[in-house]
């Protein structure tokens, strides 16, 4: 009985699909924030000069976009890692189950029950 790559392919494709969905949603989320930044600049340039403590909205938004990219990148990595771990656990469980079944089969065979 072969527990090799063919089955792993299926699992990996499923995980890839989940990760791909996470990526697209996060990409869309960031794109919305980036688009708001552009719209603010174009539609209301004066707003970018709005005082926020020692800085202004332009600097907060600009630095914010850079920091947001990093924060979202870390979250994305964690979510992907979670999806991969889950897939890996399921895979280990399946392999373990298959081995057990195989072992039972062998034992039954040895006892002449098959």
């Amino acid at each position, binding site marked *: 009985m072969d527990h090799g790559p063919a089955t792993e392919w299926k699992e990996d494709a499923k995980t890839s699909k989940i*990760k791909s969905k996470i990526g697209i949603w996060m990409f869309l989320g960031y794109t919305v924030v980036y688009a708001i930044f552009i719209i603010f600049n174009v539609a209301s340039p004066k707003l970018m000069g709005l005082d926020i403590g020692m800085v202004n909205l332009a600097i907060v938004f600009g630095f914010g976009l850079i920091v947001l990219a990093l924060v979202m990148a870390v979250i994305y990595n964690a979510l992907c890692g979670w999806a991969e771990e889950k897939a890996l656990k399921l895979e280990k469980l399946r392999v373990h189950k298959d081995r057990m079944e195989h072992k039972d089969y062998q034992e039954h065979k040895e006892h002449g029950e098959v």
Partner: protein
Amino acid sequence: MKYDPSVWAIIIFISFVALVLYISWYFAKRTKTAEGYFAAGGKIHWSINGIAFAGDYLSAASFLGIAGMIAIAGYDGFLYSIGYLAGWVVALFVVAEPIKRLGKFTFADALDAKFNSRGIKLTAAISTLVVSLFYLIPQMVGAGTLVTPLLGMPHWVGVLIVGTVVIIIVATAGMASTTYVQFIKGGLLLIFSLALVITLFSRGFSTAPDQGGNIEYHQFTTIPITVIGENIEVTDKSYAVSEQWTADNKGKTLVFAELSKDSVKSIWKLDAEKNILEETLYVTTLPDGKKLYNGGTIDEAKFYQVGNLLDIEGKAPAKTKTLDPLTFFGVIKNSTVLLWSKQAIKDNDRTLTIYYQNPVKGAEVLKPGRIYKLDSAIGGTLKDRLDFISLMLALFLGTAALPHILIRYYTVASPIAARKSTIVAIAAIGLFYVLTLYMGLGAMTGGVVDLTNDNMSAPLLARSFGVIFFAIISAVAFATVLGTVSGLIVASSGAVAHDIMDKYMGKKMTDRKKVAAGKIAAVAVGVIAMVLGILFKNMNVSYLVGWAFSIAASANLPAILMILFWKKTTAKGVIASISVGLISALTLILLSQKTFNEVYNLPNVVAPVQINNPAIFSVPLSFLVLIIVSLFTRPKTSGTDAIPATKIPKIEGKPAEENR
């Protein structure tokens, strides 16, 4: 202005080149296979690859160009930092893992993984070469521009040095040596940029920045006058008005006067409200091409470094104590910054470029508006807004479509490593881009700006902290050029040897022959880059990088995204999309007003295309063409073309954990 070559700069530069050559020699012995040459054997650790990404991506345009633009125009230069960094989000969330899964050596591999189409291979290779060329020229010109002031050598020597070193790096060990050169460069750039900003905070601001006591700040003077009719008369009779010019600057009339005193000439700008003349700085271009700086030769050093706060929070003269990242902005916001504007005047057979004082409130330089006129109250038009949106779109979508960035995904072992290396890259590049705002504003207010070469703002800011610092930052600037040019040449070499010769022409080369072809291609592209770097010497080419992003975003990104996420995409759709994106972006660029003004040198001719950044038209067009052509060329039998986008080659048959 004149720069004295620094012995330390030469020593540090030579040491760096020696280190780079040693790395190339070391890896050359280990690079025998095509995978080793084009993808460093796929064995680079993700953390090293992440910093190498930063080394590859942070080109001279980022380090020298953005800091210089901020030093001259304030926040508008920082918009490039934001756009360049935002592009990495597209790379991480959408492109990184699939590209690694689908490709082998070049991004054409990934595009073609599903179709095995010669047309895709050829168009993707041509697109790679065009984008890389647009990127290479400013890097090579930048190398020449740097070598003149720093090492005291002619421009062509700089181009030749960088070209030769890069050819050695790439032709010996390809991607392996390139990766480690980029890793070292990326690391050095981050460390010394951070050090520069920390020393900037510790120095604080002064209304008379004296570069740490080394160079006294030139206090610009004014002269009282009376204006009779259209003629200027100077109250101090030791001055005589020898010439007077008026110039139109976007509807605003500017008046300049040339004064003589003791046979020494100087140019002044009229402030009609205050009835004074303000001192200017000017460059005279003579009929034979020679240039005079404030009336003297470059060796006479009459042209001053500028940039300071006229008052600090309403007080002058004044000085601050040590600053922190927030008070740095707070002080600028509540002070007045002395910026400089430029006006060209044609006077008989000489051309005058006059730089005149333009004091603005600090709050104004900390928000957009000095380059991109988005506010209609200051003359912003629809065209200006479209140009701005187009630029931000190109920067956002261009990064994930740059061939020399995409090939770095093949140097790591797995898609997971590709993802992790992108996160390291975002952290490193994000930190650097935050620092660019401090470096640029520090130069703007630190009395270090050379108005004739704003690209030198960051190195000159470093020089104000001592010659060693200057030497290190200059060597890092050289390394910046070396790292990026190496990546571009590897990408071009792969396009020629792997995509065109091996795959498109079907030469069926052995691994050994493919490596040899790659090396020959690297030498050829390197030589072409050197020739172009020398030919384009006098051209303002910094905007070519922005155009490379537009072309990449138009030609490559629609194809990459649609192949990954639209099952109905066909090979003909991809070919049409790349071709139309490439041709439309190039055509719009070549017919734009900026190209007419700065490349063809036709400033008085109205160009057919008024917008300067094509992405807003060419990117949607490329998507549209791909969709239409794909729908019309779908195979009649369902299923033959509709390979699911998620069907992905297995990762060496290992579970995910083992591929990290």
